[in-house]
């Protein structure tokens, strides 16, 4: 198998295309932080892409630009041919944060149905969809629970279900499992892989863990800090569907080693 190669700039027909993107934080007169510089990424429909890099390298910033929570200083993002703002207003973006950000005053089912409620979907339809998602993420029996009665892992399941409620075309996750213990994390990794497989949604995952990235992704984007740039793309050619046992695979170890070597450059 050939070593993964640096990939050329995005083809215009890609589902998500990020071109010439940079972002500098700070108002005039303040200290300027050049968080992202010259970012070009192309993502195909249904692809699972991970962003990885040391903390402060701009992973969250990049994800927030794709999700229209931030505007870039220069460059352009297109999602299915639309600007992030249009895609967001069409409810084509799902976003999961490290903090589950559930509404403590709503039961789990009403939390999951929140984006539908905000869109004005009729109640019966909302409940049908929420029930379907509860089954999908494995929260059956917790429809009527309050968020504070759930463990961290279950709260993230609910947050993922909520993000999927409007059938988004792209799912963005910012270190969603960063605060969970290893076993819960493994389990949720498998859930996410299964959700990706059955829904066919395009996924961009921010993670600290190279092993998580290799386990789940079709492609890994390694970023280096100050300013945040792409140092390389790693294409993960492990067969799908993957179970946790893929981690015993020699190829898995090769890819992890490759990723680690690339990451270490960012820490120098």
């Amino acid at each position, binding site marked *: 198998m050939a070593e993964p190669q640096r990939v050329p700039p995005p083809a215009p027909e890609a589902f998500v295309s990020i071109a010439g993107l940079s972002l500098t934080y700070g108002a005039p007169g303040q200290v300027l932080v050049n968080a992202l510089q010259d970012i070009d990424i192309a993502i195909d429909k249904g692809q699972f892409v991970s962003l990885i890099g040391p903390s402060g390298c701009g992973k969250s910033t990049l994800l927030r630009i794709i*999700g*229209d*929570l931030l505007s870039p200083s220069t460059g352009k993002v297109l999602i299915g041919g639309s600007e992030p703002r249009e895609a*967001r*207003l069409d*409810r084509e*973006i*799902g*976003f999961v*944060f490290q*903090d589950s*950000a559930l*509404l*403590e*005053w*709503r039961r789990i089912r009403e939390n999951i149905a*929140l*984006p539908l*409620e*905000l*869109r004005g979907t009729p109640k019966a339809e909302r409940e049908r969809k929420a029930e379907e998602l509860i089954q999908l993420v494995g929260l059956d029996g917790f429809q009527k629970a*309050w*968020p*504070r009665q759930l463990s961290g892992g279950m709260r993230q399941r609910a947050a993922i279900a*909520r*993000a999927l409620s*409007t059938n988004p075309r792209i799912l963005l996750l910012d270190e969603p499992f960063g605060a969970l213990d290893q076993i819960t994390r493994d389990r949720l990794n498998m859930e996410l892989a299964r959700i990706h497989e059955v829904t066919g949604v395009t996924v961009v995952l921010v993670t600290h863990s190279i092993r998580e990235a290799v386990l789940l992704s079709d492609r890994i984007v390694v970023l280096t800090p100050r300013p945040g740039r792409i140092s390389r793309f790693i294409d993960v050619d492990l067969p799908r569907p993957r179970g946790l046992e893929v981690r015993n695979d020699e190829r898995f170890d090769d890819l992890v080693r490759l990723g680690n070597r690339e990451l270490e450059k960012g820490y120098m």
Partner: protein
Amino acid sequence: MSDTVQKLLRPNGFVDLAWPPVAAFIAIVILWEGLIAVFEIPVYILPSPASIWLAITTNPGPLFGHAGITLYEAVAGFIIGSLMGAVLGTVFAYSKIIARGLLPYVIAANTIPVVAVAPIIIIWFGHGIGSKIAVTAFLSFFPLALNMMKGLQSYDRTIMDVFHIAAANGPQRFFKMRLPSALPYVFVGLKLNVTFSVIGAIVAEFVQADKGLGFVIMTSYRTLAMPRLWAAMLMSALIGIAFFALIALLERIFVPWHASAQDNR
């Protein structure tokens, strides 16, 4: 045994929770009655429980009438003051510039003793019940204004992002995010106001009134009718307790998800 009775009797049921204060109450009344008999304490120093009971039960109509007036003033002032406070708190939460301009004066006004401001309000609003309600509303205004503002600002920034991603509009953000996250603070303010509203009504009646428990306390004091004074004092306490219990019940209904409502379930 019926379900309800079982519920009342089980550990942490009503009986389990209620018997210690009830026992203490009976013990205090007996001790009180006994001390007065043994030491021959004069009634103007400390009336006996029996004499207070008599002051309440002989010709109870007028006394309960006065209590009703005070209750009415307290509740009306509580509602008006809390509503106005909630509105101003909301304005403050949404407009930084208005908050920065007015907040110092609101905090300063909050420190004015009610006894100093009551005569002024009574001059403005006249000698009827209206002026007592106005004094009570004045006291109930500040706690809710400040807690409403704090509450509306306390929403989680990530939840704000969730609403942004879901393309929520302004009213949706207010009613489905900021207001629900403010409710625990609102109830802190409302509980303070319960106490303040009873105080406000009685203080206003001290200044000028011809009815209400404050009026009863003042006239009993002038004639040294101490059992009647104690009766009025205890009734004002009961009004405060019942009012507080009502607000605590509303808190359980409207904020069932919050820790303060769940832990003592």
